[in-house]
Every structure is written in C-alpha cells, then in structure tokens.
C-alpha cells in the first residue's frame, strides 16, 4: 500500500507533467494557423492534433483521479492539474491549396519532432508512477501512443518536404497516420496529379509499348530470333507466328475477350493513361509514315494482341506448372469461367461472396491479366533497387491483391530500405510447391518468411496463391479474422497486411539476433504490461500470453516472433495502434526506420 507521502508526491508530479507537456501542441498548432500548411491536409493534421491533445488531457486527468482516489477523502481538495485548452488550429483552406511557407513548414516539422518524444517521455514517466502505486499503467501508454502519432507526423512531413517545396503546390503527403498512408489516400493538386500520371503511368506505358514493338521485331527477325529464343524460350515462342496462331485460335473460342485484348481492355479500365502510353509507339509509327505504316501498325497490334492472348486466355493451355498436382497452374476444381471482381472493396459485404464459395480453389480466370502484370512491374521496380526478385505471375493471384502487395512494398521500402537489401525474393507460391520445401505447411497458411534458404527457395517473403485468388474473399476473411480477435488490425489478413506482417518478421529477426535490443524491447513491453523472457521473447504464462491475445491478437500470442510481426502490422496499418503495437512499432522505428 503506498504511503500518503508517495501519493502526494505522485499527485504533484502529475501536475508537473501536465504543466510541462499538455500544451506541447500549441506551437505546432500556431504554425499551422500561420500557414505552414494549407488545405485539406492541414485540416486533417489540425484535427489530429486536437484529438491527440484530448487523449493526453484525459489520460492525465484519469491518472490524477486514480492516484487521488488512493488517498481517500482527505485528498478531495488537492489542487487539480492545469490541463489547458485544445490547441487552436485554423489552417487556411479553400480552393487556393498550396504547400504553405517552407520556413514555417520546417519549423512545424521541428516542433512536431520535439513534441512527439516529449509526450513519449511523459507517458513513460506517468506509466512508471502509476505502476509504482500498484495502478494500471494504461493512461501512460495512451500518452505514449499520442506521442508516437505526433512524431510520425513529423517524419511524414519531412519525407515529403522536398516534393512539397519542389511542386510549390499542394501537399503530396498522406493523411495523418502513424506511418504514412496509402498513395491512393493522398491529397493531390492537379499539377501533382499530372506529374504523377506522367511519371508513374504514361512513361512506363510508353516504355512498355516501345519494348513490345521491339521485342516483336526481334522475335520475327531471322538474325535475332535464335539468340532471343535461347535467352527466353517461352517469351520468344509467344511472339512467334506459332504463339500468335495459338492466340488467334484462343480468340476464336472467345471473340469478346480477344476484342478486349486487342485494345488491352483491362489496362484501359484500370490505368487508361498507361494504356495510352503503350499505344503511342503505334500511333507515332502511323503518323511518321503518313499512313503507309498503318497496315504494318495494325498487323503489329494484331500480333501483340495474339501474343498477349496466347499468354493469358483461359481457353489456351498454359505452360505446365511443375508445382501443381495436375501439371497445370490452376488447382483442381478451378472453374475458369467464374466471374471475379479484381477491384473489390477492402471491406466487402458478405453478400459479395456467394454461400460456401470454396474460396481457396479460386484464381482469377484471366490468370495473367495486364493488371496483374502491372502490379508485378510496380513491385519489381521498387524491389530491384535492392536486388530482390518479385514474382506474382508464375502463380497468378487477383490483380487487386497483387496491387496491394506492391503498394505495401513501396511504403516499406521507403521506410526500411536496409531490411529489403537483406532478402532475395518476394514471391507468390502454390501450396503444393511450398510443401515441397516445408512439408508440414497447412491449408490455412497465408504467408511465410524464410530467414534462410530452404528447399530451393531463397531467403524472402512468400505469399500463398490459394489465399489471394479473389480479393473479395481475401478481404472478407480478413474482416472475419479481425472480428474474431485472430488478427491485430481490421485488415489483418488482407494482401497488404500479410506483406507487412511478413516484413515484420524480418525486423523481428534483427531484434532477436541482438541481445541488447532484446532486453531493451523487453523492458518497453513490461511497461505496457507484457512480461516476456528476453531470450526467447515469449510472453509470460498465462497473463502475458492472454494480454497479447486480447490487446494485440490471437495469432500474435503463438510465440515471440509472431507477436513482433503482429505488433508491427498494427503499428503500420492501424490509425490508432494500441499500447503493445506502439511499444514494438516505435521501438522498431527508432532503431531501423530510414536506415
């Protein structure tokens, strides 16, 4: 039982913490008001700051009340802490959206940089005070979570500062989130959007269109055909008259599909700017030859279509897959006519999925669609900087899931480049193929990380094809999984979250390999009520395990490695990560982010 002196000391200390820290966001708020940022992003940041102020104020008030309750009636009249008022943010808004003043922006970043760790320190001290009195440390953890959020905003702004100032236009950064959001969520000005469309969509399309024309010429030129065939037999065959005839034959079976492929319909639907870029070389050829090249261009396009269709048509027998049980890429029971929605919403309604849909044997009918290829290219562009091989097409998945892999990879590569350098592959694999390397793999396996080569698979991240064949099903399972408490975040088993979880294993490996880091993180976890042994990193039995189960995820309670991966996923993906995720995530960022 704490003594009256200890209680009195704690009350005084909480008042001091309130005086010192509760107004830490006043200056960032003033800078916002002064025009450090303008527009919707500034509005969101302002709202976020106000929300976090409330979190901290309430946490301090709750802590004070709890300690005062220990003292009994005689403490009724003690001086309350001064908790101030919410920071006043009135950022300039309206149509004239600009990046704001660069000087003020720098000061804003610096202020957020200072405020985040200050709250982290305050939260840590508050948690210690409460624990010392035998009270729940949760208010301290909430202050630390708020501090981590504020610090993350500074990092987010700093990362995009160059783009902001270079564009002299709208902020191109994500809505406030602990770790930066999805590119899709970003508020962009018309100029920024145009630059983005040009650089990320039109130019790759143009390059691809030019490359296709060149490759077609190489494949049919008698001088270059042989070396091409020796270099890549499958691609060469698809571009030869034999491959084209196969495509044309498949087109006879499915004329509508062939007509769509003629104009690369999927790409026009999903990325029209890129599709236009691919068409430009043919248009240029027509114009440059004053129309005389048009027949050749048409023939070329027909050839490209036949080539593409030969590779993608469900009516065309695909090359045998040595990993598939029936010798083909599709699992037994696959209905190639089954209509699927590549761009299904992240949180599908249950009605989106038919009753008893048998999701694990479904893959998209147009197995290697242009959208899937585009997603793989996007991921490969990120990964090749680190010498990592990406393969989403050998075992096709829903393009929507593949695009989510790519976006997740892009964000992770920005923040943890050193980790990516350390692996060799990110691949989709079939369950049967995976079982050749890991015989005990079960049907529920969604993803895996090899920390050392095994069974012919290099060190890397592996995603199981049968779990990503239909985005609607993947997302629905993710939702169900979260509702049942199995995964840590609402989208815990989506494609994006799976990749983030697996990436978390790579970070966890680094922590587990370093005794100093292990002991440091064990101390951090103890502060949020999870006792782990610093060697194996397993939570204590039973309370540590149960706390992880209820305050992180059921899957995270399996062992220390899964706890770290789940905590990392929540830290990256949740708008409001809970204390365990915050403890692990902020620790990881402190030691690995940007390195």
């Amino acid at each position, binding site marked *: 039982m704490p003594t009256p002196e200890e209680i009195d000391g704690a009350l005084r200390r909480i008042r001091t913490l309130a005086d010192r820290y509760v107004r830490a966001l006043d200056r960032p708020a003033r800078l916002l008001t002064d025009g450090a940022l303008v527009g919707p992003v500034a509005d969101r940041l302002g709202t976020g700051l106000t929300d976090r102020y409330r979190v901290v104020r309430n946490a301090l008030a709750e802590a004070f009340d709890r300690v005062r309750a220990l003292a009994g009636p005689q403490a009724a009249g003690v001086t309350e802490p001064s908790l101030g008022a919410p920071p006043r943010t009135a950022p300039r808004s309206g149509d004239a959206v600009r990046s704001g003043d660069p000087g003020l922006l720098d000061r804003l970043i610096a202020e957020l940089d200072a405020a985040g760790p200050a709250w982290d320190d305050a939260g840590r001290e508050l948690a210690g005070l409460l*624990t010392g009195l035998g009270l729940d440390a949760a208010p301290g953890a909430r202050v630390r979570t708020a501090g981590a959020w504020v610090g993350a905003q500074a990092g987010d702004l700093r990362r995009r500062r160059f783009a902001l100032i270079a564009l002299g236009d709208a902020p191109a950064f994500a809505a406030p989130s602990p770790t930066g959001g999805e590119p899709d969520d970003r508020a962009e000005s018309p100029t920024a959007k145009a630059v983005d469309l040009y650089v990320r969509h039109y130019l790759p399309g143009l390059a691809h269109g030019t490359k296709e024309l060149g490759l077609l010429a190489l494949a049919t030129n008698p001088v270059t055909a042989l070396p091409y065939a020796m270099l890549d037999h499958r691609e060469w065959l698809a571009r030869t008259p034999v491959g084209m005839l196969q495509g044309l034959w498949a087109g006879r079976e499915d004329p509508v599909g062939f007509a769509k492929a003629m104009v690369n319909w999927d790409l026009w639907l999903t990325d029209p700017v890129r599709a236009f870029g691919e068409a430009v070389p043919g248009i240029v050829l027509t114009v440059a030859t004053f129309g005389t090249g048009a027949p050749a261009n048409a023939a070329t396009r027909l050839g490209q279509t036949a080539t593409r269709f030969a590779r993608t048509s469900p009516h065309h027998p695909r090359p045998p897959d040595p990993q598939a049980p029936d010798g083909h890429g599709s699992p037994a029971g696959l209905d190639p006519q089954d209509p699927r929605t590549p761009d299904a919403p992240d949180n599908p309604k249950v009605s989106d999925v038919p009753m*008893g849909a048998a999701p694990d044997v479904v893959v998209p009918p147009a197995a290697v669609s242009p959208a899937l290829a585009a997603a793989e290219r996007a991921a490969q562009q990120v990964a090749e900087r680190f010498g990592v091989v990406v393969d989403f097409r050998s075992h096709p998945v829903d393009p929507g899931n593949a695009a989510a892999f790519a976006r997740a990879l892009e964000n992770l590569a920005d923040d943890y480049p050193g980790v990516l350098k350390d692996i060799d592959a990110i691949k989709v694999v079939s369950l049967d193929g995976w079982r050749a390397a890991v015989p005990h793999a079960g049907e529920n396996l969604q993803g895996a990380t090899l920390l050392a080569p095994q069974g012919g698979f290099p060190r890397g991240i592996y995603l199981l094809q049968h779990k990503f064949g239909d985005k609607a099903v993947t997302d629905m*399972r993710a939702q*169900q999984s979260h*509702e049942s408490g199995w995964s840590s975040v609402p989208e815990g088993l989506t494609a994006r979250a799976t990749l983030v979880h*697996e990436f978390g294993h790579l970070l966890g490996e680094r922590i587990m390999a370093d005794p100093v880091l292990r002991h440091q993180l064990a101390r951090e976890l103890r502060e949020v009520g999870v006792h782990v042994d610093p060697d194996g990193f397993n939570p204590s039995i039973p*309370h540590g*395990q*149960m706390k992880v189960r209820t305050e992180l995820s*059921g899957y995270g309670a399996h062992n220390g490695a899964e706890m770290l991966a789940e905590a990392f996923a929540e830290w990256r993906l949740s708008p409001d990560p809970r204390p365990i995720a915050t403890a692990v995530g902020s620790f990881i960022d402190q030691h690995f982010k940007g390195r």
Partner: protein
Amino acid sequence: MTPLPGLITYPENLCASCAFLRETYNPDHDPGGGDPFSTFLSYCRAFPDGVPEDIRLRGYDHRRRYPGDNGVRYRPDRAKAGLLRAYEALVRPEDAGRDVSESARAWTARLAALRARRAALIADIADAPELRVAVREDGTPVVSPVGDAVWTPAATRRVPPLEPSEWPGFTAWADITPEHLAKTVDTDRMVFVNGRGPLLVGRDLKDVAFGILRAARRGSGVLEAVVGGVVFVPEGVGGVVFSSRVGLWAELGEVGFRVVSGVEVVGRGVVLDRGQGHAVRVGG
C-alpha cells in the same frame, strides 16, 4: 520443430459466433509438436474439456449433432452475426455437413489422453509431500481471470513468489491439503499447478476419492480405504472401479457412472483405477 515465421488464416468456424464459446490460455500446449491441441483452450457447454477440431478447425456445422455434445448445440450470439454470415459464406456445404463419425472417435482418443494427464496430475497431488496454494492477505486463494476462466495457482514444490501485477493480491504460498483445495475451488475454476499444464478443472478435483487414491498409490491399506469410502463405477462395464471420475473417463471415455460405497463392490472383486500406474485388484 519450431514453426516457420508466417501467417495463417483464422479457421472459419461456428464457434466464433457462438454464445457458449469460452477461451483461456492452454499451458499444456507444446508448439514444438507435442500434445495437446493449441495455444488457447476453446471450450463450451457442449464440450467442457475442449471443442473438437472438426468444429473448431475444419468448419463442421455444430447446428447438427456431433458425437459427445450431450445434446447441447450451437447458440448464435447476436452481437456476432457478421461472423455467422462469414462462416456461411466461406465454408463449403460439403465441409459443414460431412460425416464426422471417424474423426469424432479420433477426437475422443485425444481427449482420453488429456484426461489421463489430468488424472496423473491429480494422483501426484494426492500424495505430494507438500501442496501449496497461492493466497491473498486474508488467506483465501488468489484468483485471477485468464480469458474467460478464473485461475488459482498451486504448487507441489518450492516455487518463487508470483508477480503481483499478474496475480493480484498474492501475498504468500500457503500449505493446503488436496481435499481442502477441492472443497475451496468452484467447479469451473482452473487450478494451475507448478506453472505448467495440464490445468485441473475444479469439478475434476471435486470428483476424487483422495483417501482411496493415496492408498492405491502407496500400495497399502487399499481394501480398508475402499471399504471406508466411495468409488466411481462405470455403467455397462463390469469388474472395474475408479477413485476419480477423470480417471474413469480417461480409461473408458465419457460413459455414465454411479458413485457407490466401496463396501458394495469389494465382495465380488474389482480392479481399481485400471489404466493408471497404481492400478490394483481389490477384494474378491
């Protein structure tokens, strides 16, 4: 074998949306591939010792009969209607309604192994040189919620003090007899012995004739103990009696039984605690 780091999907099941589902940590789980079951113990009114894997992991629809469910079936939890819809969408009808008679038998065998472990632990407690229970300042046993269950720590050897932040109110380890422990705990209480599994459930401890069990373990005075006590007699199986219900079920499965005075059975001669290391013939 240490599992590879990875991510596995939550198995679609009806349990997740069932009002009867309860869960606690399972200290008996061995992730290295040993027995039993899983990290958390899922249990309910139909399956108080653990939900069969047909239902928990493989999508069997427990709105249908399942061997050993004693007529208790799935009851929807209105707050989890979304999980029920997800189950219906994600599980194939042929999986939900498949024939489980064979796998149910296999599950019964696994349950028998779990009960045998519990019976062995009860036997160890019965004649342990020392038995202690964690107590609070007022001398009552420490109770701590672990998931949906309430646990009380006990020990048959010297163990260090418990972490007060995890076991609220812990002040000391106090000596206790097995009989007193059984009387003190509720039927649903989980007794956590020596910091590892298996968990002993209060109702298992209450259905034990400790005097007879102790005599059988030390191999002397068994007849006197049986004559002076009560034994568990299985229905439909002659010639065997048991000193505990959990021992009976470990040997014969979840059969009906009667609790009768030992005097009634010793005249014709019976085997006491068949299947356990201390099994002995009594009377006749």
